[in-house]
C-alpha cells in the first residue's frame, strides 16, 4: 500500500520541481485583499466607515473632550445658533448641540444598521445554506416560507410595531431584520446552488465526506464572498430605511437622537435654520455613499473574473 512507497522510483518530470517557487503562497483571501487595497477610492470609503463607526462607539469620549455637551442637554437661551463657536455645528430648536447629537445619533443609526445586517445574515444564510444544499422538499418548504416573509408589506409591519410599543434600537433592528432576511436567504441559496454544481463538491463526496463537512468546510467558505458584499451594501440600505422610518415617526422617537429623526425635527425649520437639515442629511448621504462604494469595491475584489494571475 501507500506507506511502503520507496521514493525516487516513479519517473518524475523535471518540470514538477521548477517554477512557481518565486512568489509566496497566495490564498484567495490574500489575493482579494490585494485587489481591494489597490482600489484607492474603495479603501477610502472603507476607512471612512471605520472612522464613523469608531466615533460612534466612542461617543461619550468625544463629547467629554470635544464638545462638552450632552445630547439631551437643553439650553433654551441658545436656540437656533448657526455653526460657529462654541457650538461647532450649531444648535437646534431646544438649544441642543447638533454635533453632539450627530455623534450620538450615529451610535443609534449605525448600531441599528450593523445589528440588522448581522441578524439578517445569520438567519438568512442558515436558511439559504440548508435549502440550497438539500434541495427537494426541504428547499420547497423553506423557500415558500421565505416567499411569504418577502411578501409581508413592511410598512404595515412598522406601523403596527410603532402602535404597539416604542422601538428601541435593538428591537428596531430585530423588526427590520425580520423582513430583510428573506432576501439574504434567496441570495445565499442561489450561490449555494451554483457552488454545489462544481466538481470539487462531488470530488469531496467521493472521498467520503459527510454533509456537515461539505456545508461548513466547502460550501460556506465559497459562499462567504457573496455574504460579505451583501453585508457592506446592506449597511447603507438599512441606514436609509431607518432614517425613513424615523422620519415617518415610526422608528426611534425623540428625545433619543438618530440621524433620521434629526431630519424630522428640522423639517419645519428648513428656511429658518437650514443647517439643521444639512448636517444630518449630508451625514446620511456620505455614509450611505461610502457603504455603497465600499460594497462595490469588495465585490470587485472577490470577483474571480478579474483575476490577473493564471
Amino acid at each position: 500500500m501507500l506507506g511502503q512507497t520507496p521514493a525516487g522510483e516513479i519517473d518524475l518530470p523535471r518540470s514538477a520541481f521548477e517554477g512557481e517557487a518565486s512568489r509566496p503562497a497566495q490564498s484567495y483571501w490574500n489575493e482579494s485583499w490585494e485587489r481591494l487595497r489597490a482600489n484607492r477610492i474603495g479603501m477610502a470609503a472603507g476607512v471612512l466607515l471605520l472612522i464613523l463607526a469608531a466615533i460612534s462607539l466612542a461617543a461619550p469620549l468625544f463629547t467629554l473632550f470635544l464638545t462638552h455637551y450632552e445630547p439631551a442637554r437643553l439650553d433654551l437661551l441658545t436656540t437656533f445658533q448657526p455653526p460657529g463657536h462654541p457650538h461647532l455645528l450649531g444648535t437646534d430648536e431646544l438649544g441642543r448641540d447638533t454635533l453632539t447629537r450627530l455623534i450620538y445619533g450615529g451610535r443609534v443609526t449605525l448600531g441599528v444598521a450593523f445589528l440588522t445586517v448581522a441578524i439578517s445574515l445569520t438567519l438568512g444564510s442558515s436558511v439559504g445554506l440548508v435549502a440550497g444544499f438539500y434541495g427537494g422538499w426541504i428547499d420547497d418548504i423553506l423557500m415558500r416560507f421565505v416567499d411569504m416573509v418577502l411578501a409581508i408589506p413592511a410598512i404595515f409591519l412598522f406601523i403596527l410595531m410603532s402602535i404597539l410599543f416604542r422601538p428601541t434600537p435593538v428591537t428596531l433592528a430585530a423588526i427590520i431584520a425580520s423582513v430583510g432576511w428573506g432576501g439574504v436567504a434567496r441570495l445565499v441559496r442561489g450561490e449555494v446552488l451554483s457552488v454545489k454544481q462544481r466538481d470539487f463538491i462531488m470530488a469531496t463526496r467521493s472521498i467520503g465526506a459527510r454533509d456537515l463537512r461539505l456545508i461548513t468546510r466547502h460550501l460556506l467558505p465559497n459562499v462567504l464572498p457573496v455574504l460579505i458584499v451583501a453585508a457592506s451594501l446592506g449597511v447603507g440600505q438599512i441606514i436609509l430605511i431607518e432614517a425613513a422610518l424615523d422620519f415617518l415617526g415610526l422608528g426611534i422617537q425623540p428625545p433619543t437622537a438618530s440621524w433620521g429623526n434629526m431630519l424630522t425635527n428640522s423639517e419645519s425649520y428648513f428656511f429658518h435654520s437650514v443647517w439643521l437639515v444639512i448636517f444630518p442629511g449630508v451625514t446620511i448621504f456620505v455614509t450611505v455613499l461610502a457603504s455603497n462604494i465600499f460594497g462595490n469595491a469588495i465585490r470587485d475584489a472577490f470577483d474571480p473574473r478579474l483575476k490577473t494571475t493564471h
Partner: protein
Amino acid sequence: MPEGARLKRAWTTADPLVSVRGLKTWFPVSSGVLQRTVAHVRAVDGVDLDIKKGETLGLVGESGCGKSTLGRTIIRLIDPTAGTIEFMGEDISRQHGTEMRLHRRDMAMIFQDPYASLDPRQTVGDIVGEPLDIHRIARGKERQDRIYELLKVVGMNPRFADRYPHEFSGGQRQRIGIARALAVGPSFIVCDEPISALDVSIQAQIINLLENLQAKFDLTYLFIAHDLSVVKHIANRVAVMYLGKIVEVAPGGQLYRRPRHPYTGSLLSAIPIPDPLIERNRERVILQGDVASPVNPPSGCHFRTRCPRAKPHCAEEEPPLESFGDEHLAACFYPLD
C-alpha cells in the same frame, strides 16, 4: 439463507473486481405547475459490465451516451434506479451512510475539469490530506509525511503543499487530483475524462503517470473518455456506449481491426489520424443526423435511427450483447464482418 449473507459472496481475485448487472440510472424530468414527472432521462439504460482486477477498462462514447453517469453510478455518487453493482463480491448498489463510507476507501474518482475539481479555498496539502482526515488514517506528522509522499508520487514538488490550486497549471492540478484519489489507498479508480481538458503536450505526461501508478499500486481503472485514440492506448479492453447502453466490448486492438457494431465502425472512421496520407485515402462512414434524445430513445436498438444497416427487425427487439469470440461482445443483429 438470510438476505445479508447472500449479498456477500466469497470473492477471489479471479472474479471481477466490479460486476454490474442490469444497471439503470434514470433521471426524472418534471414539468408543469405541479412539477409532475412527465418523462425520464434514461442516462444508463440497462448495462451489464465486468471489470477485472488490475485491468484498465476503457469506456467511450459521445456526449449524452451516459458514460459519465455510468462511472458515477458505479462509484455510488449517483443512486442507481435499478440493477446491481457488486464490488469485491458485495452488492453496494443500495448501501448508504457508514456502510458505504467503508467502501469509499477502496474506490476513488478523478475528474475532468482540473479547474473545478479542487476547492479554491483549500491549500494543496489540505486537498490531498482531506481523505486522510475523513477516514482518520493519519494525523500530525504522519499525515504530513503521507501528503508529501503522495505529492512526490504524482510528480509534484512537496514544497507546494501550502500553495493554492489557482497557482498551478491544468496538468499540475490534475496531478493534485490524482494524489487526492490515491490518498485513501483505493484499489479501483474511475477516471472521468481525466485528460480532455489538458493541452495535448501535457496529456501524454498524465497518461504515462496513470500507467505508472497502476503498475506501482496494483490499481484497476475504469477510464472514461470520448477520445478513442487515447482509450485504445491505455486500456486493455474498451466498451463503447450509445444512448445508455453498451453496444460493444473488445480488447483495444481487436476493436480497431475488426469492429462489429456499426456505431463503433462509424466512430472509428470519424476519428482523425495525424497522418495526411492516411486521412486523404480513408473511407469515411459519416453518420447522418444527430444523436437521439435519451429521454425518448428509439424502440428496439437505440442506434437504429442513424444506422446505415438498419432493418425493420431492429425496431422491434433490443439486440443483446453476444459473444463474437475472444472477449469480444457486440449488441447487433446485423453486425459488420
